[in-house]
Structure formats: C-alpha cells, structure tokens
C-alpha cells in the first residue's frame, strides 16, 4: 500500500496509526535515504504506544529502548535500532539487539534494516517493511 504525507506532522500521524496495528513481536524495517524521515516515523509510532519520552536519533548509540507505560498493552518496550553504519548480525548481537527481536512484549524499529530481512524470515519473526521516499522537502511517499 501507498500513502503520501504532506509534512512532518502527517508522517508522525501516520506512524502513530501504523503502531496501533502492531500486536507485539514485530520487527519493522525502515527503508529510506538520509533525511527521508525514518526517525520521524518512529516518533509517531512511539506516540501510538503512548510513549511520552522524546524519540531521538539512535545513529550514535545504535540502539535505544523506550518503556511503554500503559498497562493495557502487551507491548512493554519499543526498541529503536539504527544500522546506518552497515552493522551486521554480529554487531547487532554484540550490542544486545538480537535479544529483542520477536519477543511478544517488544516491537522493534530498525532503520536501514533491509539487510536483516533474511535472518528475520529464517527466524520466523514477523516483519514489516516501510519505505519512505522524499517527494520534496516536506512531502513523503510511504510504502508499506
């Protein structure tokens, strides 16, 4: 499916709506160039889980964990991972990222995560691919 968001606010709104369809245990692979709005999308997703904490770029620390406060949700943690620097499986294992994949009480968002697709499929983990394309400085096409 395909949608076009007109600005950052709409991208966040879309991320929020998308997050509400997640049940727990999914890994969302975010595909898009520098400046496409991958982190912006995750900001929206975090809102969907009622996370109040501000989502910042995980590029430097590679992995960030956000607690989901709501007791009504099965998902307890949102994991935000960035493999921008071409991190491989060994690296992700090294930073403890692999432990979070496929767990029912987590949802994982992996920026630049296309390289993980095969591994996740083999491990029978539910994956979503979200592709974000810049149409102009504000407009984004989101394919999912």
């Amino acid at each position, binding site marked *: 499916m395909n949608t076009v968001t007109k600005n950052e606010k709409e991208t966040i709104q879309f991320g929020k709506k998308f997050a509400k369809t997640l049940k727990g245990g999914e890994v969302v692979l975010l595909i898009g160039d*520098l400046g496409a709005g991958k982190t912006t999308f995750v900001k929206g997703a975090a809102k969907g889980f009622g996370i109040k904490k*501000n989502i*910042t*770029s995980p590029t430097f620390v590679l992995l*960030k964990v956000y607690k989901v406060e709501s007791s009504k949700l099965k998902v307890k943690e949102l994991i935000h991972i960035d493999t921008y620097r071409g*991190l491989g499986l*060994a*690296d992700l294992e090294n930073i403890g990222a692999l432990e979070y994949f496929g767990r029912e009480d987590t949802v994982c968002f992996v920026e630049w995560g296309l390289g993980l697709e095969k591994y996740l499929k083999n491990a029978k983990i539910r994956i979503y691919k979200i592709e974000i394309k810049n149409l102009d400085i504000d407009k984004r096409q989101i394919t999912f």
Partner: protein
Amino acid sequence: MKILAIETSCDETAASVVENSKGAFEILSNAISSQEKVHAKYGGIVPEVAARLHVEKILPIIESALKTAKCNWKKIDYIAVTAGPGLVSSLMIGVETAKALAYAFNKPLLKVNHIEGHLISALTTYHSPLTFPAVALVVSGGHTQIILVKDYLKYKLIGETRDDAAGEAFDKAAKILGLGYPGGPAISREADKVKGKSSKLKVKLPRPMIKSNDFDMSFSGLKTAVLYAWRDTKKKSDEARAEMAREFQQAVIDVLISKTIKAAKEYNAKTLILGGGVAANSALRDALTDSAKKESLELLIPDIKLTGDNAAMIGMAAYYHIKNKNFTEPFNLRADPQWELV
C-alpha cells in the same frame, strides 16, 4: 589524592591518572588509543570491532597511563570508570576491567557518567571555585544538551536536541557533501576554505527552532535542508561545497549559541561551560567566546585535547563524587548504555 580513570564508552580506549591537591587538578597522564582510523572505513563505529580493540588495548593503556604519571598501584587512591551512556559492548570492557582492578588492589571504585565527564572537562584550566549557577552546553556525536549546574554535582536538564545530536548532524552533512568521516573536522576544514566573509554563492540554510520559546534544538531538518540545497546546486564545485559546509556549520553554531545564551539569561547564570567532541570546533569556540564576553559571563572552555573522549575528564568528575563518598560496590556495578545524567 590520585585517581586512576578508565573510559571506553565508544571507540577510544583511554586511561588517565588525575591528581587533585587543594582543589586544583593536575592531569598526570592522559593515554588514549583511538580506533578512529579503523572505523573510518565503515563511516562510523562498528561495535564488534570496537569491543575487540578495547579488549586488546585496555591493559597496555592503563600501564602506559601509570608509567607516564610515574605511578604504581600503591600510589593510586581511587579507581573511576565510565559506566554509561555509550555502547554496551564497549562500556563493559572498561567497567569489568575497573571492577577487577578495584578488587585486586583493594581500591574504592566510582562510576562516572560520560556526559558529566564532558561537562567537567573544562575545569582543568581553572583553579578557583566555580561561580554558580552555571549553564553547560554539552555537544557531541551522541548528545546535545543544555544543562543547568546549580552546584557541584547538581544538574538540571533544561534543553536538548529533539532528534539528531549536533555531532551526528555534522557526520551526516559531511556524508551528503562527500567529505568523509568523522564529519566534524571534515566540515570545519572545508568551511575554512571559504575566503573572506561574503560569497557569491549565497547559500542559505534554516536555523531550526532558533525562535522557539524553550531551550530544545533540532538538527534533523537541517540535514534534510543540506540534502536538498546540495541536490539543487547545479555546479558542485569545490567552492560551492566549501560554501555549503560553512553555511551548515554556521547554522548549527547559531542555534547552539542562541539557545545557550538564552538559557544563561533565563537562569541568571554567572558561568558558561562548554564540553564534548564538538567543542573542538574552532568556529564554535570563537563564537561562544564572543557571546560570553558580550554577556559578561565567565566562560570555561576545555583544552582541545580534552574535547574528545578521554579518561582525564572521568577522573576529574570522580573527584567530586569522592568528596560526596558516592562509592560503588564493584560486584554491583553494571554498564548502563542508556544512563541519563539528568
């Protein structure tokens, strides 16, 4: 009092012996083994490689720090280590080494927050007590925070980036402009190539959130703006690239300074403190020096050698925790990759 400090939060393996007598710091040694060259080919730090190199380097670096300081274990009073934030696999090497040494030589152990180290790194060159309140700008690859320092060890977060850290924005803008990694020095070198103050090219980038009423910042949109401005630059000449780098650097500096000065006024600060890897940027240092002078604020700026990750700053921060007896039981200490100072 002599403190042996260890820092391995990211890609520098570092150890230092810091002495404090009567409140004045002396850095007896500051040994650093940088992995920058190894990681440069990947365009950034690779955790698995980093952890392996830390394991190889940590003991020789500690030995070297002791040797340079003309010190042996008998003369060391305390051991301090960075426990977070950072990469868990990197932090662990330093933390576990520090724990083992604390046991083996029976020394009191202190955990230090990496950001607190950056915040305190300017205190070496400064021998009189600080005048509070102070406002600190800590700006690095992973963090961009404005912190109110009410007293020693008393911090309050008053502003931070809502998306990318300033140092990360430098890395990514450098990548867009094809300038390589690490982006900070690359952009700065490129910006310096612009001769004179006016340019024919007139690139104009936004200053995100500069007028917002809080002390938060945003650099993600600026990165996107560089992406488009560069894409739309028809003639990608060396001159155009240098001009873009300079405008980008100026945009980041304008936002950082405007927010920091605004915070200083709001909280009636007497002192400004700069710290973190981006504090090595000479244009930022100059601009903050000018602004501090204009506002009659005392400015503490770290020695360039102490702007990047190092263990001396960890030893200095530990000194204040020793005074407060914030010791850690080695057995209970764990690396905490997401440890927030405030």
